[in-house]
């Protein structure tokens, strides 16, 4: 057991904080115009670290790079090879789009940014309290910004007071990072816990398998003297230590279509429309889960969110309270390594050998702890209440979510979650439906229908909602590397 491993001064603050108090934010997606000018700008950039400050800061700057961006800054291919394949080949790679559900209207060819020919090099994220925002952006960009970069797009955000554009409370559940690496890994977990190994969110540390995820290691030389040594190979420099991967997707939400659909299906009753919406999301609009809160604490649950997070689906095995296909049940099934808890070695062996639970819906989902992500996204567009959405006169301006998540292994975390759980038309024994909020409704081989949503009944026939329209369209996306401050200086060295 080791304590105080992480040098917070070296980690970008976004890994530790969501900067909730800084309600203004914008994301500049840029390409490098002039390498020397870009490097000079990067060297001077006041990137915010993860040290907790009192009083809290009022502004923050974070910077992440795509693989073409790092190449543009001169990172040699031999070093690039050490980064993960997903990062190197990018989100819009052809075979990947099928996996992620980025087909049909979601296809990268139609994206505003990140698609073929419009891949950004850098993501520069500005956060500030509203009164400081404009001056912060201006002063941070300085005089050299436009010499150094050309903007692919600049994305604004909006503050919807904790709701996402459809009007449901968002960002309630986040994993609790085991910063001090106090929990032993690997171990078989029989209980769902919200504590996740540091190495799942920060490169260079042990992950849930007790291993250190692959990343570029360098032979020491004069240029990389400042970099930290690798924990598992101390003779090498660890370029990625204290860094992580950042996944960004611009998800446009059709709020009018969403509420009109619910309203119509609820027979013109807004309260019932909200109930159907709650089944689709898995929480009420206020954010309360559809299954009861348990008395037994769940390790790593933020004491402030116990009322909304201290639950699993163990007491709802048939999905009668929270449908199997509900968005939050897909995104975090809250299960553990075994389908049963408090079991002895013999029972464990029986389960491992396949003589355990016999029910159709038993033990269908992978253990969630290997598939957690840290969400850091923000909404954009103006607020549109359900009532407003139902008025046909209200203008349908673009609004949605700039989805951002952090993870150390894109394929096992974000991509698995997106493909095996969100986009999967066969999730948890249910067929003919993908995520009711996020799904693309495209038919797949042998399955013409993927636009259902099933609400299991408690000893009664399920209700099946047919013909869900596509509520959400992917407008852009890319994989980034969010480096440590040391690595950032390494990339930006003259």
């Amino acid at each position, binding site marked *: 057991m080791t304590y105080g491993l992480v040098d917070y001064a070296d980690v970008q603050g976004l890994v530790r904080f969501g900067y909730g108090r800084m309600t203004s934010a914008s994301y500049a997606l840029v390409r490098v115009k002039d390498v020397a000018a870009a490097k000079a700008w990067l060297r001077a950039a006041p990137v915010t670290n993860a040290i907790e400050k009192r009083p809290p800061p009022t502004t923050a700057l974070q910077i992440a790079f795509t693989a073409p961006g790092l190449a543009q800054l001169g990172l040699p291919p031999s070093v690039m090879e050490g980064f993960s394949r997903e990062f190197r080949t990018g989100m819009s790679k052809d075979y990947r789009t*099928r996996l992620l559900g980025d087909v049909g209207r979601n296809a990268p060819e139609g994206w505003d940014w990140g698609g073929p020919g419009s891949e950004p090099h850098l993501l520069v994220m500005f956060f500030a309290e509203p009164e400081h925002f404009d001056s912060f952006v201006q002063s941070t960009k300085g005089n050299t910004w436009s010499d150094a970069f050309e903007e692919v797009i600049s994305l604004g955000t909006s503050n919807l007071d904790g709701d996402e554009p459809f009007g449901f409370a968002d960002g309630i559940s986040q994993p609790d990072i085991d910063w001090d690496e106090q929990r032993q890994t690997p171990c078989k977990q029989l209980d769902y816990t919200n504590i996740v190994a540091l190495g799942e969110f920060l490169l260079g540390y042990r992950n849930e398998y007790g291993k250190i995820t692959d990343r570029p290691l360098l032979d020491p030389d004069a240029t990389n003297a400042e970099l930290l040594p690798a924990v598992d190979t101390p003779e090498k420099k660890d370029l990625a230590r204290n860094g992580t991967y950042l996944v960004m997707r611009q998800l446009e939400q059709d709020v009018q279509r969403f509420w009109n659909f619910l309203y119509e299906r609820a027979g013109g009753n807004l309260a019932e429309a909200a109930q159907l919406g709650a089944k689709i999301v898995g929480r009420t609009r206020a954010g309360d889960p559809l299954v009861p809160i348990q008395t037994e604490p769940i390790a790593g649950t933020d004491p402030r969110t116990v009322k909304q997070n201290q639950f699993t689906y163990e007491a709802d095995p048939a999905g009668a309270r929270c449908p199997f296909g509900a968005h939050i049940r897909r995104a975090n099934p809250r299960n553990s390594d075994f389908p049963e808890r408090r079991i002895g070695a013999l029972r464990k062996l029986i389960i491992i050998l396949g003589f355990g639970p016999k029910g159709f819906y038993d*033990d269908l989902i992978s253990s969630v702890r290997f598939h957690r992500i840290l969400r850091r996204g923000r909404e954009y567009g103006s607020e549109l209440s359900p009532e407003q959405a139902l008025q046909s006169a209200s203008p349908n301006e673009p609004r949605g979510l700039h989805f951002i998540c952090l993870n150390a292994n894109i*394929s096992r975390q974000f991509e698995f979650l997106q493909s095996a759980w969100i986009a999967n038309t066969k999730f948890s024994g249910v067929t003919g439906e993908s995520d009711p909020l996020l799904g693309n409704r495209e038919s797949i081989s042998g399955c013409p229908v993927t636009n259902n949503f099933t609400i299991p009944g408690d000893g009664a026939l399920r209700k099946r909602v047919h013909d869900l329209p596509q509520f959400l369209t992917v407008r852009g996306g890319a994989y980034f590397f969010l480096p440590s401050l040391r690595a950032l200086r390494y990339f930006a060295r003259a």
Partner: protein
Amino acid sequence: MTPQGNFMILAPIVPSREAELRGLLDSMNEAPGRVNPNNPLVPFAQFDTLHFARFVILDDKNVGDLRFYGLPVRNYPLYLAFLGDIDGEEEAFLNELVRRASDGLRAIFSCCHGFASDTDLMAWMNLLRSPASAAYVNTRGRTVRRIREEAALQDAIESKLASEAPSFEGRPPREIHAQLKRFVEAEKSAGRLTLSGDEATPLGWTIKKMLHLIGMPLLLLLASPLLILIAPFYLFQLRRLEKTDPEPYIVVDDDHFETLAKAEDHDVTNPYSALGTLKPGLLRLVTLRGVLLVIDYATRHIIKPGRLGRVRTIHFARWVMIGGTERLSFFSNYDGGNESYMDDFINKLGFGLNIFTSNGIGYPRTDWLLRGGSADERRFKEFQRRHTVLTQVWYKAYPGLTAVDLERNTRIRRGLESSLISEQEAREWLALL
């Protein structure tokens, strides 16, 4: 019950004809990973006892790994494997193949050694049959016909419930069960649904299975004095090898990864074809042979339908030694993407993977054959991807259906066929719809 069988033809390719063969195989696809089920060479869709089939060129990109043991690279012939999972006997199916796809198969096999224009196709295939050392069948007795009938049943019930939702709403489970039972009976009478009864189990198969069931433990018992005597030496040597075997970590190259990925995820099910070289020495070969005997015994007599350990996503799987005793191949048909397949294996069935794959060169280090190994997630995933070979042509008789779908449909049918159903059973049955 009609038991499932399998076939595999393994033929060395004439080097000068390889390109032509690849072209022929590609011509059976609409795009990489998407077969034309009615392609003129082998019109798979015409075979109503065929579950899965594939053509694979066993292009071993890792033969050079013997260098980690200081051994020279072996020069194996490049093989074409043609394999499938079927209902009933291999012999009968091969005959049907000859009947329906003679010209296509002749064109394909003419690119292989020893096949001339006057070769007897059936005799040739019989000669090159390459039986599996062990094979897994998700649910024995579930024929293609039954799968299709049960899928149609599920569809019919789905449409009925969709079009007459109000008449089912709020009704007690047993009443809905009875109502749907009447509906299905009527559909059957009208000839719109067929639910064929079970065929008789071939006597020869039953006898063979019984002999195997009893014979293997008997042999083990007979051999036990010897085995007990050898055990300490064996275990000592195994442990020594486990600690000293080279453990190279080679990341799969991007082009190979891309070739595989492009052909995947066109259906909810994917093919998996892998090939690797055994670690040198008698101990590893003996271990592998013993393990395959155990797997074979378990898959035949012990495991429950639908479950390979805790894994419920595999339709068929097979272990085959390739051209002697030095290389092992593994073929499977699994649901979901490769990443989730591998995660399932690591987290649910790691020991099952380790016990046979750890005898292959380059596998992550194991402890006593069962532990470790695949638990080294990154190393394992690169190892398996490196050893995966592209499946050139892959056919599945029921696109869009996962093994779990098949299980659901079977449960729906069984629930309908029982006339006496308790309240609890009716509730569980209703939850399947």
